[in-house]
């Protein structure tokens, strides 16, 4: 059951990321819903669930991208693990705090990715921050915050979290 849910989640996320979101690009950048999903699963499910989903999602998303496999796998895996660790030590997370948290983690993940990818000489650090990392972090924060708020206000997320943690 768990594997089926995760496989469906991954297939859905990859389809949305590669087909739907490119039509919603702002300044040539789209949010990374894989990163948001990994953060949410890490927060609610725990560090190992976040790590495993991050590794799997990073790997499969990189099959449909020119980015190398290792960077995507390791970055998303680490994000899931860190989200899980954070989730273990936080009792309550307000949507506004979650937005800031996603903003920060997306910035860090983006900078690490920029450092690890073998980009061309035109794509220097300043370009990476200005053209990809910062706009994507803002979009991730907005999309992640909206999703979290939806879960928090409509689906009684606090009960979910307490159930998962017991």
């Amino acid at each position, binding site marked *: *059951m*768990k594997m089926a*849910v995760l496989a469906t989640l991954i*297939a*859905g996320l*990859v*389809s*949305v*990321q*590669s*087909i*739907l979101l*490119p*039509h919603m690009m702002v300044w*040539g*950048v*789209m949010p*990374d819903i*894989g990163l948001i999903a990994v953060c949410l*699963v890490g927060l*609610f*499910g*725990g560090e*190992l*669930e976040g*790590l*495993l989903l991050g*590794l799997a999602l990073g*790997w*499969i*998303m*990189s*099959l*449909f*991208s*020119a*980015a*190398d*496999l*290792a960077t*995507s*796998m*390791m970055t998303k*895996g680490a994000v899931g*693990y860190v989200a899980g660790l954070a989730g273990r030590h936080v009792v309550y997370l307000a949507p506004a705090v979650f937005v800031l948290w996603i903003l920060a983690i997306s910035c860090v993940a983006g900078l690490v*990715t*920029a450092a690890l*990818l073998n*980009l*061309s000489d*035109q*794509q220097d650090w300043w*370009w990476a921050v200005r*053209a*990809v990392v910062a706009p*994507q972090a803002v979009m991730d924060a907005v999309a992640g915050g909206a999703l979290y708020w939806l879960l928090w206000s409509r689906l009684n997320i606090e009960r*979910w979290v307490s*159930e*998962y943690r017991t």
Partner: protein
Amino acid sequence: MRMVNFRLPYNTGRIALVLAAVLLVGFLLLPSQLQGVFQEVGSPIGWVLSWPLRAAASVQEGIADFWGGFVALRGVAEENKELRKELEHLKGQNSQLREAAVATERLTALLEFKTRAELSMVAAQVIGRDTGNWYRTIILNKGESDGFKSDMGVITSAGVVGRIVKTTAATSVVLLVTDPNNAIAGLVQRTRDEGIVEGTTQGMARLKYIPLLSNARPGDRVVTSGLVGGFPRGLAIGTITRINKDEEALFQFAELTPDVDVGRVEEVLVIQSPNVQAEGEQLGVPAVRPKS
């Protein structure tokens, strides 16, 4: 409400952590070998995932058609309320017919070009775009099972689109000509000066390493040189819009406008025999260019 329990048993958790650590060390020590293994293992997974991708692409196409028709019909309704119903019907039909006509024209152009080029080429459809923001790529609905491999050239009847950089069993990732990480051997058709065409961060392209004494000028066409890579000689890449000469530089470079609007490409041809030298210069600019 019954919930799905995502928590893993303790032993599984420990194994997963050790696995992640081994992976990390593996990627640090043997990056290319391990990535090769994951690419191989990922190939059948890519095949499985290509089905939801294709399904989503079809749904998206349908919604785009519907949305296009809806917007057009709203305009008509505002102009003439009395004829609204009739116009809705006719507009809908017209939209579908126009789409079919444009698709036919595009496919006919591809077919004519394929016949004329005398190269071994396979047609493929674009089903998606890069899942990240770092590269400009498109995803094709064909892969290793159709004979696609890395470094194969991808074109339309209008010119060069890019080259394949990654494949799974049923999909391929094409790095576009406008990506700064792409490099294609090109030459200025009029002056015969050779250089390397690469994308720019602004989504255009540029020809590097043009000799300082070259008299290349805006308006000159740039085509593939056929020296290296998956392209035969003479395929259209773009038109020079500006020449840049730095005082102390050894070479000059030219900014190009690609002939193919890579943001709107829907069907492409993949060159499977790059070593077959077509009568490149005789190909020139295709007679029929797809409307984008």
